[in-house]
């Protein structure tokens, strides 16, 4: 009982100290993620308007057409005109949604003219990154602190772990203002690579090579996770992308290429 109340108090305290009531999709930092955000908001507002009208009529009816207020039932039960109208209007609204959605989709699937290519391979339970042109390659998995804390009965307060479950040992570094083509595949089961602020997700499938592109406009660290169930540690294979200005990226590449060469010579 004591433990239970301690748990309750601790959790209530955490509500106040860790209040993070994010309710919406993050605004993106890449054209594809931005376009998805804009479409999301557009469709959301359209559904809100439809909802307000339909539920408005329904609640008007519920409050006014009730027996306790002496309402007598009308006898109408069909009207071809009305039924045609409310078949056609939704159709027109849908066409209005489909046009921007199709445009965005075409833009998202256009991976031509990319400057660099990053190949991502999903493993149970880590990612491998290959910079195809720049000859850099490494594995990236959940960092040790999160990994210790996430064990059943670890007794470690996960709230004190830096970026719990969203931190890795080796970050992906990408240049800003550069169209990067990302190729996705997997070596064992299906995974999905998703960093919400820079791009929607795509599956990494054994035997397939899927494509994504990003063009990050703002330097920063962006975090994501595997989003296709891939076994027991599916929840523990995060993605961290550090976007840096081009010169810095070039420096990072040369440093890491050197390390590789040095490794080989040893």
């Amino acid at each position, binding site marked *: 009982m004591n433990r239970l109340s301690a748990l309750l108090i601790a959790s209530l305290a955490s509500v106040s100290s*860790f209040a993070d009531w994010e309710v919406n999709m993050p605004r993106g930092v890449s054209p594809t993620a931005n376009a998805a955000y804009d*479409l999301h908001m557009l469709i959301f507002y359209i559904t809100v308007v439809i909802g307000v009208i339909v539920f408005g009529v329904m609640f008007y*009816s*519920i409050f006014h057409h009730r*027996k306790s207020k002496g309402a007598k039932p009308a006898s109408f039960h069909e009207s071809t005109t009305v*039924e045609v109208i409310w078949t056609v209007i939704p159709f027109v609204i849908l066409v209005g949604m489909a046009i921007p959605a*199709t445009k965005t989709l075409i833009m998202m699937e256009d991976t031509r003219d990319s400057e660099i290519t990053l190949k991502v391979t999903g493993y149970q339970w880590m990612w491998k990154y290959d910079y195809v042109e720049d000859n850099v390659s490494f594995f990236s998995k959940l960092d040790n602190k999160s990994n210790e804390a996430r064990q059943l009965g670890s007794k470690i307060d996960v709230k004190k772990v830096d970026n719990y479950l969203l931190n890795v040992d080796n970050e992906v570094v990408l240049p800003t203002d550069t169209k990067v083509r990302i190729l*996705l595949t997997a070596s064992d089961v299906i995974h999905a690579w998703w960093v919400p602020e820079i791009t929607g997700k795509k599956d990494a499938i054994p035997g397939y090579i899927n494509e994504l592109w990003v063009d990050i406009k703002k330097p920063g660290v962006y975090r994501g996770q595997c*989003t296709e169930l891939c076994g027991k540690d599916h929840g*523990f294979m995060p993605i961290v992308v550090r976007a840096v200005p081009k010169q810095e990226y070039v420096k990072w590449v040369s440093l890491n290429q050197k390390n590789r060469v040095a490794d080989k010579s040893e």
Partner: protein
Amino acid sequence: MSTNIDHIKEEHHHQPSGLMRWITTTNHKDIGSLYLWFSLLMFFIGGFMALIIRAELFQPGLQLVVPGFFNQMTTMHALIMIFGALMPAFVGLANWQLPMMIGAPDMALPRLNNWSFWILPFAFTMLLSTLFFESGGPAAGWTLYPPLSLQGGNSMPFVIFSLHLLGASSILGAINVIATILNMRAPGMTLMKMPIFVWTWLITAFLLIAAMPVLAGAITMLLTDRFYGTSFFTAAGGGDPVLFQHIFWFFGHPEVYILILPAFGIISTIIPAFSRKKLFGYDSMVYATASIALLSFIVWAHHMFTVGMPLAGEIFFMFTTMLIAVPTGVKVFNWVATMWRGSMTFETPMLFSLAFIILFTIGGFSGLMLAITPADFQYHDTYFVVAHFHYVLVPGAIFAVIAAVYYWLPKWTGKMYNETLGKVHFWMTTVFVNITFFPMHFVGLAGMPRRIPDYAVQFTDFNMIASIGAFGFGLSQLLFVYILFQTLRQPVTAADKSWEGAEGLEWTLPSPAPYHSFDTPPKVD
């Protein structure tokens, strides 16, 4: 011929009693009750699993279960709820109601009916027993995607065999429904005069016959991949993991409508009854149901927008999926028009039906958002999807089942439930269902993937709220069970026509309805 009839009549008088009565019964009401009780039991087993999931997700970090077991819980929760709770509930309602609604004495194929029920307990015993295997139960999600599902332990062949049994049971049930509706309607009841619940079930039965064999094919290929060296779905052997998803969802999308079309039929029955006004647009309701059923076969790939389909494919499935909003919208508008200028009262079945319309429509809105492919790249496999399908299945399908039980309970038992308790049950259920599932929209949009046992700390608050809601929802359903048993202990007092505005042949029968519904067919004009 005449001796045959005598023999059948004889059977009525020599019914076995006790357990044998239920095992050997061929009566549609007995079998309907068996289905409904079975469904209730499965609802609690699946619900218990959901509570294990929500307890683990109450706060970040792993407190209760290891990730492998967590995955078994999400997988089993879905299989039990879909195949054990929802589908049998609708078949149970069909069994009770279809013969009474079309003026028939019983279902067309009574022995088949007995068999299709009695397959279920064995199938689910086998399915549930896998949880006690050393290698555990299935953990690859209810969608059983390979290659992950091929890595599963010893549970896999047992799961596949039980799914085969469930498929067989559903197909037999569907055949029976079609045979009954097409052959046993009272004279004068043309197709376009059938009660709307009968229509939705007729269409659902065709969906079942079309969809279940596809599932059977897909899981059989999984089985041979695992045990007989084929590689339909393994890339290393030249197979294609995505092929499974196409086949699975060719079954899976119609399956979604199998779970919701009968619910539409129930709502279309209850709303007019408590509005004291005829259903608005009966014909367009029938056409809308049929269009939804047809569309359900050309939208499957919207469950897999992220597998990397060609652009043309993505556009095609986006458009067809968006189209579903049209007939679904027609249904919602028709319900609202039915209420318009009616004379409404708000007994428990009506309350659940009204909540259905609002909350199902919210699930429809998020469904429309999910149909938009570029936005779906963000929503896919997050808690936003979890929120979406729980809105259409819990306050959607389950609310419809609960509404139906309250609505027809006096007809089935001759006893009236306690209206005050029914209303308390309604308000508790509705409040908690929203506390549980609404915050899932938020964490999903904020980036929380589904099917994870542990999460980053920024998702904590809404997960706590959802978990509290889930336990409240579970408790509220204990009240439902209490109400059912309390009703059964009442004396028989219900009127033949238990609701002032109720229409249909079932209300011309005495309450409780006689064992063989209509010995002589009623005349319908």
